[in-house]
């Protein structure tokens, strides 16, 4: 008994490295457990370990289920499923390349627009704005995050798409029409519109987390910079460098949402499995095609191919996240080294 509790104690000390949201626990519960010492700590440790284990188990169970339901399609198409851009349920030819392309490009457009916007919001709210202004703006930005995505989609069809068709896309075509990105017929529906809708949807996430990150940078950093005669912009830069890993985390969180978003995108992206250099052209994402076609997929190979798309979406998200984390790790190592 004694040995066991010792062991657990050792473990819980290790566990300290992982931040745990203690505020989620009812205070009465934790107060009753903590002062009694070992036994309570042991139960607590087991309980919180169980929660993490459950998450891991759910992920494994999902991958296994997806893989087992996708076997028919994996056996029939093999690797060509990843390289073929043809998607023809009637003839039974299935390939995912066009969907992978649409998913990644629409998310990149979203980040391209949203990251500068969100960073601007976060910096303004933390560094510049007086509380009278920052509180209502914070509230409004967070309100954006609470709007259901189908509402974004309807707004996209009835407001955003016509606006882009009449006022934005003609200008892009006139000024940047020499780029293959902005060529072809203008309908207001397509990859660009999908990316912009996504940008609006991920901005509240990135800016809210970014604001918390910046607010968490110790006040002394700013004071030190200002004391050295730094301008407001220079002290903000110090804060940004310190907050870089957290901001990168915020961006990754936003990217995750963009990759998996379904309803809003499907309503404005045009739903056409093609790979075109022009952002005005319709495209299609992995999540959208699953949502669109799952209910009417009767043939085994059809259903299996849709499930394989789900598996691919899983992998794409995983790979993109891994690459993003790697980039963050390399970049932050560089800046911290330079700062030292």
């Amino acid at each position, binding site marked *: 008994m004694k040995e066991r509790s010792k062991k657990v104690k050792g473990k819980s000390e290790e566990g300290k490295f992982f931040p745990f949201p203690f505020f989620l626990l009812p205070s*009465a519960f934790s107060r009753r457990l903590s002062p009694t010492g070992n036994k309570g700590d042991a139960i607590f440790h087991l309980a919180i370990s169980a929660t993490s284990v459950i998450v891991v188990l759910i992920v494994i169970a999902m991958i296994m289920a997806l893989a087992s339901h996708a076997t028919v399609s994996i056996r029939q198409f093999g690797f060509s499923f990843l390289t073929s851009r*043809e*998607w*023809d*349920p*009637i*003839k039974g030819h299935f390939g995912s390349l066009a969907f992978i392309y649409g998913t990644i490009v629409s998310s990149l457009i979203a980040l391209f627009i949203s990251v500068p916007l969100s960073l601007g919001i976060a910096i303004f709210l933390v560094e510049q704005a007086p509380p009278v202004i920052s509180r209502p703006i914070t509230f409004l930005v967070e309100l954006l995050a609470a709007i259901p995505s189908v509402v974004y*989609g*309807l707004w996209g*069809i*009835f407001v955003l*798409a*016509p606006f882009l*068709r009449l006022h934005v896309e003609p200008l892009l075509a006139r000024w940047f029409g020499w780029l293959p990105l902005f060529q072809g*017929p203008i*309908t*207001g*529906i*397509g990859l660009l519109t999908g990316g912009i809708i996504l940008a609006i949807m991920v901005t509240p996430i990135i800016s809210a987390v970014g604001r918390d990150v910046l607010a968490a940078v110790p006040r002394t950093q700013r004071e030190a910079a200002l004391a050295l005669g730094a301008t407001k912009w220079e002290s903000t830069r110090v804060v940004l460098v310190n907050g870089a890993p957290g901001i990168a985390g915020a961006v990754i969180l936003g990217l995750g949402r963009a990759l998996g978003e379904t309803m809003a995108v*499907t*309503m404005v992206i*045009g*739903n*056409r499995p093609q790979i075109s250099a022009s952002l005005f052209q*319709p495209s*299609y994402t992995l999540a*959208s095609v699953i*949502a*669109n*076609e*799952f*209910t*009417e*997929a*009767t043939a085994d190979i059809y259903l299996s191919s849709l499930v394989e798309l789900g598996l691919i979406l899983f992998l794409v998200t995983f790979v993109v996240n891994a690459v993003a984390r790697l980039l963050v790790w390399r970049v932050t190592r560089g800046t911290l080294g330079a700062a030292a």
Partner: protein
Amino acid sequence: MPSLKIIRRGKIALALISLAAFAIASCSGNPGSEIRLQGAGATFPNPLYQKWLSEYGKLHPNIKIDYQSIGSGGGIKQIQARTIDFGASDSPMKDEDLKAAPGEILHVPTVLGAVVITYNLSGVSQPLHFSPDVVADIFMGKIKKWNDARIKADNAGANLSDTDITVVHRSDGSGTSAVFTDYLSKISAEWKEKVGAGTSPNWPVGIGGKGNEGVTGQVKQTPNTIGYVELAYAVQNNLPTAPIKNKAGNFIEPTIDAVTAAAAGSVATTPEDLRVSITDAGGATAYPISSYTYILAYKAQTDETKGKALVDFLWWGIHDGEAFAKDLRYAPLPADIVKRAEAKISSITAGGKPLRGGQ
């Protein structure tokens, strides 16, 4: 400290109440003679079926029928797996799907629907008329401009502009797409060979809108577009609809009567099992892009009580239930088909005993 206790007591009370509610909810499963039927399938007839369920429930309070609109594909899957008492599908089941089922499945037609061509072209006052080959070539991407000579030929005097046609189609797998592509496959050999008919065809051109509302939204918002939606949806939303030239050579506006006429015009060619496509139907007033929607049920029911309830419900549906069709913009069955559907319902048995009888 006392306040904390009160809070805790309150939480315990809350937990007990919700537990009790849960227990009550799970107990109320089967009191006495209540019969429960579960159906699932096509989304297109869902508004009508929900109306049927509520009306039928008023007449027979002891029979609880639930219908979930999970899509025709789902309906077929579920009835094959026997997880539901009846399925529903817009297009008849294929031979191989019927063979894969553990028993003989009957098709009972309930109502008819139609697919209409809608468009957004400024400067056009009277409805645009289309010949079948023109519709096919627009959706094939071969007719690219609104002022194409072949569109002009059907619309003398219409002010057709020199603009690109943008095709809008359904992006979600849909019975509406299946009916429309079935029609195109019948009237165009090229369509049949290159695209074919199905719920999610590989469209040669155009942008995809999700659902009837998505197609309508994009057609309304984008000038120079053409798309297709369900008749019921077009009527409710006052969309411009195009008369289509039928087999007899007449341009027919999509109306409920013209859809019933298409079914009546196909009676002679309707097979015994009622699995039939009535697109491009004969008959002078038949609208050519029409279709049945079906309820699917096993001929040999396993449970006599439930089977009897199902048979009675279906019988009521194709007789009294048809009265609700027109209000909800569905076309009722023609009289000849009602007779043949009666025969199907009467052939349902449980343990070798016919369930319909005495009436």
